[in-house]
């Protein structure tokens, strides 16, 4: 991120913060892949482990919040440092939510694994892979301070939405065919919904990275009246 | 770790040696002062009385008092002060507040003042004689008194002006020191409020420099009361029947009186007690003046406590 702070301790604190955020991001990615694998491989113990694993993610949110608060109190950050800290606080909230969504997926997986599979799982794993890659790229963009990279992540959200629509329509047909499918179909639809929301969170991360790097707040563009793009 | 209790013997001896030697020097000074004062008091106290201070000398300086000499000294000093203080203070103000520090004119002025301070006092006497009496005085006589000798001879006014020139450097230096002691921030504050330099000097700088100026003035007066050489041929006289009520009169003077009593008295032994008593008066005047300078300075410092160091 350019030159270093005159104060070495301050520089250390910022570095540690970055590392922790990346670590949390990695853990969250793992929870997504793990939960989908629990679905495709019908591995209930794995799902249960993923649910327990969420505790680590929650703890990291608390730890990182504490670190941010410390920097705010002691260093009075301004400009790019200020944007970094305030975004870090929001970033970990989003990561923690993604973790929670992963837990939700695992809960649905455990329920699904008690019955034979409704259909071969094709789209869901692909959707999950795309979402996980979005999250990964957003975190990469954060590390590299690459606003263009983050912008591309934001643009990929439409694909995720498209996936969801497709899966939902397909599941609808299954539900209309046979009422005994409804139980499993709704569970699968929930999982797709969770993945779609993870995609939204990854988009948020991308927008935060853009703000942090450029100082331009691009959130809610098009949804507010007029936007100050100075 | 070195102990707090012991110190190298050498440095402790050094400390003691310094205390002892400086103490001894101070003691020496005090002893000399005591001897002088003691001698004068011992020989002069007998003749010292209110009558001595208030009557004129009589019987060829072997009896009577020194009142005319006191009067003359006081008159001289007053006139001298009126002449020297405005000139000296104004010069110091010009040098310090207005003149460009680096210019050659300013440097020239400073050199002139320093040299003036170093001129022997007898030379001032000659200057007074040659310039004030023989040039200015004679000139006044020619224009105003059609040649009659009024001002073209030794007179109180010329002696006063000569003394003023002598003590000018003292007043200038003391005033400049006092001006320098006024912190720059006060001048800046005044100027920043929209005051002219003149207003700043009058309303801020001078009030605070007053203590120093007064000190310098009193020191100048002290010199004026004591110096004899410059007034030798510019106005002092040995015996005058009248007091010098007009500026063109000659006058009697304590210091001059002592000189004459010691060297030209017809009856040296009879005059000795009077001599010592006169010296006692002179010393008392000097002490009182120096003491009042000290008191004024400390009073003013107390009043402006916190402003200057």
């Amino acid at each position, binding site marked *: 991120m350019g030159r270093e702070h*005159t*104060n070495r301790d301050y520089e250390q604190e910022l570095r540690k913060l970055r590392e922790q955020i990346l670590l949390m991001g990695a853990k969250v990615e793992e929870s997504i892949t793990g939960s989908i694998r629990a679905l495709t491989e019908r591995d209930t113990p794995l799902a249960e482990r993923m649910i327990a694993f969420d505790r680590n993610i929650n703890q990291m949110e608390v730890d990182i919040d504490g670190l941010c608060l410390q920097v705010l109190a002691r260093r009075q950050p*301004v*400009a790019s440092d200020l944007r970094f800290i305030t975004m870090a606080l929001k970033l970990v909230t989003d990561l923690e939510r993604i973790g929670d969504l992963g837990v939700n997926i695992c809960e649905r997986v455990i329920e699904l694994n008690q019955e034979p599979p409704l259909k071969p799982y094709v789209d869901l794993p692909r959707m999950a892979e795309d979402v996980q890659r979005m999250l990964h790229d957003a975190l990469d963009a954060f590390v590299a301070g690459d606003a263009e990279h983050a912008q591309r992540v934001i643009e990929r959200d439409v694909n995720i939405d498209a996936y969801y629509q497709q899966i939902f329509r397909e599941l609808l047909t299954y539900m209309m065919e046979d009422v005994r499918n409804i139980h499993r179909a709704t569970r699968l639809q929930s999982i797709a919904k969770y993945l779609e929301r993870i995609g939204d969170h990854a988009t948020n991360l991308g927008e935060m990275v853009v703000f942090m790097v450029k100082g331009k707040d691009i959130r809610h563009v098009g949804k507010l009246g007029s936007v100050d793009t100075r | 770790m070195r102990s707090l209790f012991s110190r190298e013997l050498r440095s402790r001896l050094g400390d003691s040696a310094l205390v002892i030697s400086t103490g001894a020097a101070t003691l020496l000074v005090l002893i000399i002062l005591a001897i002088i004062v003691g001698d004068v008091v011992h020989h002069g106290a007998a003749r010292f009385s209110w009558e001595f201070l208030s009557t004129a000398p009589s019987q060829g300086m072997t009896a009577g008092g020194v009142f005319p000499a006191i009067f003359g000294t006081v008159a001289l000093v007053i006139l001298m002060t009126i002449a020297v203080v405005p000139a000296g203070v104004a010069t110091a103000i010009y040098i310090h507040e207005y003149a460009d520090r*680096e210019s050659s004119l300013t440097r020239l002025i400073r050199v002139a003042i320093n040299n003036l301070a170093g001129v022997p006092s007898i030379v001032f006497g000659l200057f007074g004689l040659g310039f004030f009496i023989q040039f200015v005085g004679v000139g006044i006589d020619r224009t105003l008194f059609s040649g009659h000798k009024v001002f073209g001879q030794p007179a109180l006014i010329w002696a006063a002006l000569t003394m003023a020139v002598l003590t000018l450097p003292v007043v200038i230096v003391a005033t400049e020191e006092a001006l320098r002691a006024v912190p720059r921030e006060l001048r800046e504050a*005044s*100027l920043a*409020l929209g005051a002219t330099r003149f207003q700043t000097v009058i309303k801020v700088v001078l009030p605070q420099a007053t203590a120093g100026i007064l000190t310098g003035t009193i020191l100048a007066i002290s010199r004026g009361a004591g110096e004899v050489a410059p007034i030798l041929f510019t106005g002092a006289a040995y015996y005058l029947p009248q007091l010098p009520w007009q500026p063109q009169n000659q006058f009697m003077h304590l210091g001059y009186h002592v000189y004459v009593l010691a060297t030209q008295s017809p009856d040296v032994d009879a005059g000795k007690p009077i001599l010592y008593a006169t010296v006692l008066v002179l010393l008392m005047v000097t002490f009182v003046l120096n003491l009042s300078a000290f008191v004024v300075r400390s009073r003013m410092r107390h009043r402006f406590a916190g402003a200057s160091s």
Partner: protein
Amino acid sequence: MTEPVEASRHKLTVRNLSVFYAEKKALGPVTMDIPEKRVTALIGPSGCGKSTFLRSLNRMNELIPACRMEGVVHLDDQPIYGTGIDAVAVRRRIGMVFQRSNPFPKSIFENVAYGLRIGGLNARPELVERVERALQQAALWEEVKDRLNESALGLSGGQQQRLCIARALAVEPEVLLMDEPASALDPIATAHIEELISTLSDRYTVVIVTHNMQQAARVSDYTAFFYMGDLIEVDRTQVLFTKPSQSKTEDYITGRFG
């Protein structure tokens, strides 16, 4: 050099101002506007020229020998430099408060009344009224109203500084220049001064030099960053402290200077 900042009105306009001490350039050229009835802070490392710039605004630099200036400064539409322009008149409209409080060794009343007296006002009732008003504006009235005839030197450091502010305000200037007014004060006294500055900006245009960036961030509407005699950036404070446009500014305010 950056574009001047738009504001409701500009009280002072500076164009190509340069200051030389003994032919060595200390500042400039600087072009900048000071917006009216706002607080503008000047920040930068030691020796960057911010105090020199400040003192150019009320012609206090002239008091330093071998100081030369180029460029133009306008107060409203009038130039403040030039033949025929009286420095004394300029200083009546542009007042100054210094880093170390410098009350005169006079009474509290006489300190505040000083500027009025030298301006020719000596009528007691009016003096009393203006002195009270100035002390009220400086948030000092309640503390000194019963001891106006006591020496100003008996006040605490923070009170003395507020007295100096009252003294400057008594002549009702249009602009108030403050050269690190709180740097010699403890945190509570500093807080009082900062509070005072924000109330003052309702009536006066304030320009304040400070080496304390957090103070600049707290107190000012606009901030100008100086470095090595040049104006690097000037902008609204909330912009300069969240997304400055010059990397030098960014480095300085985040503490990345080597």
